[in-house]
Each structure stands twice: as C-alpha cells, then as structure tokens.
C-alpha cells in the first residue's frame, strides 16, 4: 500500500495515478478483511475501487490527462510533511497497543452493543443494528450528506450547464442567446 502511495506522488501521468488509486483502495479493502471489518471491506471494494475510480476517469476524459511540472520549490512541503509526521509519531507513543482488548475505545458502550444487541434488536449483524438503530440519527445525517452532494453535482454540472452562472469569467453562451439554452 505504501509503495502505491509513493508511486502516486511520483507519477505525472494522471491516468496511471487514477488507476493506482483504484489499486490502493482495493489493497485497503483486503487490509480491512484482515482486520475483520467485513462490512467496511465490502463498501471500500465497491465504492473506492469501483465508483470513485470511474468518476476520476470521467473527469480526466473532460479535462487533461497529464500533469504539468510545477516550478514551485519542493523543499517547503517536504519539511512540513516530515515535521507533521514526526509530531504524529511522537503522539502515538501514548496510544493503546494494536489488538489490545482493554483500550479505552473498546470499553465504553461496546460491551453493551455486543452483549445485548442480539436480544434488543434481534439481528445477528451488529454493524447493521448499530448503523440503523442505535446510531440512526447519525446514518440519517450521512444519507442527507449524500443527497446534498448529489444536488451539488447537479447544480454544478446538470442540465443546461453551459449557461452563464454568477462568478463565471466569461459567458459560454452569449447573453442574447441565453433564452434558447
């Protein structure tokens, strides 16, 4: 996975970059299976490797396929990245160890979900019962976010996209022909 990430940094051919990001998602999905998060792996394989790669390819078809070489200096981002990474690694020294059953995140509420969701909700998949029932508000919010994103895309690119919009630098269609569009 890390190798794929570094290849994404180096490559200038955007087509290859997008394909690599699809591979990256697929590797992440298999990692989730190893970490016993089957639902998440399922979603990542369907969404990350499938749909988002497809959308990026569609964008590339509309825009350009090659990245131009930037003249900006390279050292400042590198310094920022290494300093931030160093601080974050320092921060992990206090974190609970991998796989620890007594980590704080695993103690509050979780035993209740695991022990009682079978009798309270009556369905075997704990992820589904937490998703739809215990955290129903959360999921409602997420659904509304997806809905809003779809509306946003429709507003930006929907029917009659060539008409003039506020903030546009020059009208694609001349003002006098706007009625026809």
């Amino acid at each position, binding site marked *: 996975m890390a190798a794929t990430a570094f290849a994404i940094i180096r490559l200038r051919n955007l087509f290859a970059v997008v394909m690599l990001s699809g591979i990256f998602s697929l590797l992440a999905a298999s990692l989730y299976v190893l970490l016993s998060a089957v*639902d998440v792996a399922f*979603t990542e394989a369907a969404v990350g490797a499938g749909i988002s790669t497809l959308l990026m390819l*569609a964008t590339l078809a509309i825009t350009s396929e090659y990245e131009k070489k930037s003249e900006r200096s390279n050292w400042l981002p590198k310094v920022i990245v290494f300093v931030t990474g160093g601080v974050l690694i320092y921060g992990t020294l206090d974190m609970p160890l991998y796989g620890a059953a007594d980590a704080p995140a695993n103690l509050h509420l979780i035993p209740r979900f695991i022990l009682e969701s079978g009798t309270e909700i*009556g369905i*075997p998949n704990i992820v589904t*019962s937490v998703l739809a029932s215990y955290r129903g508000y959360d999921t*409602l919010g997420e659904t509304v976010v997806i809905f809003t994103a779809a509306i946003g895309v429709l507003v930006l690119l929907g029917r009659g996209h060539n008409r003039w919009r506020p903030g546009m630098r020059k009208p694609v269609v001349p003002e006098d022909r706007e009625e026809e569009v």
Partner: protein
Amino acid sequence: MNDHSILRVVSKIMIPFILLFALYVQFHGEFGPGGGFQAGVIFASAFILYGLIFGIENARKVLPANATRILLALGVILYAGVGVAGIFLGGNYLDYNVLAATATGGQHLGIFLVEFGVGTTVATTMVTIFFVFAGQDF
C-alpha cells in the same frame, strides 16, 4: 462502444446478476455483511455498466432523469418518514420498537425500511453523478 461484441454479450449476461446480487446484499444485510450503502453502490454499478457499454442515451431510457431525481429524494423521505412514524405511534423519533407488535419485530421492520431508504438514495446518487459526468461533451 458498439463494436465490442464480447463486452456487449458479457455485460448483458452480467447485469441481471449484478442487480440480483445488489438486492441480496440489501435484504441480507441483517444477517451477513451488507446493507443499504453497499447495495446501493452495487445497484448503481449495474446501471453505470449499462451506460458505459450501450451509451448514456440508452441507459437514460431505462432510468429517466426525472425518475432518479424523484427516487433520490424519496430515499431520504422514507428514512425520515420512518422516524416520524415512530413519533405518531407513541415513541421517540427513529424509535423502531413501536412500529410492530413486539420490540424486535419493530426493530426488524424499522431497520429494513431505513436500509431500503439508504439504498435508494445511494444508488440514485451514484447513477445521477455518473450520468451527469458522462453527459458532458466538450
């Protein structure tokens, strides 16, 4: 892509199974991995595959723009409506226990409807976004 006969034949065979698999994931999500989010994406991918192979115009005939717009909103309304139904039946918002005679039965029904709403919204969102992107011609 009209001249790729292998692609056309294989996708014609595959698309019903993709749709069937999406429905399985949708309605089996309570017992195994799956649920509305995944099912919606898989369902959408069947339409996207159809659009890629047979052209956007033909895919639009199967699923017109107005239908996706309406379904997009209906999914969210179904989810929120389940919550409101809980209020009218004497519970809290999004409390499924009161939806049926027994508490677990109510939870089953509530989760089923909510997941269906999520699946509808996700599927139509993905289809809409893809068609809008692919409908660009510069």
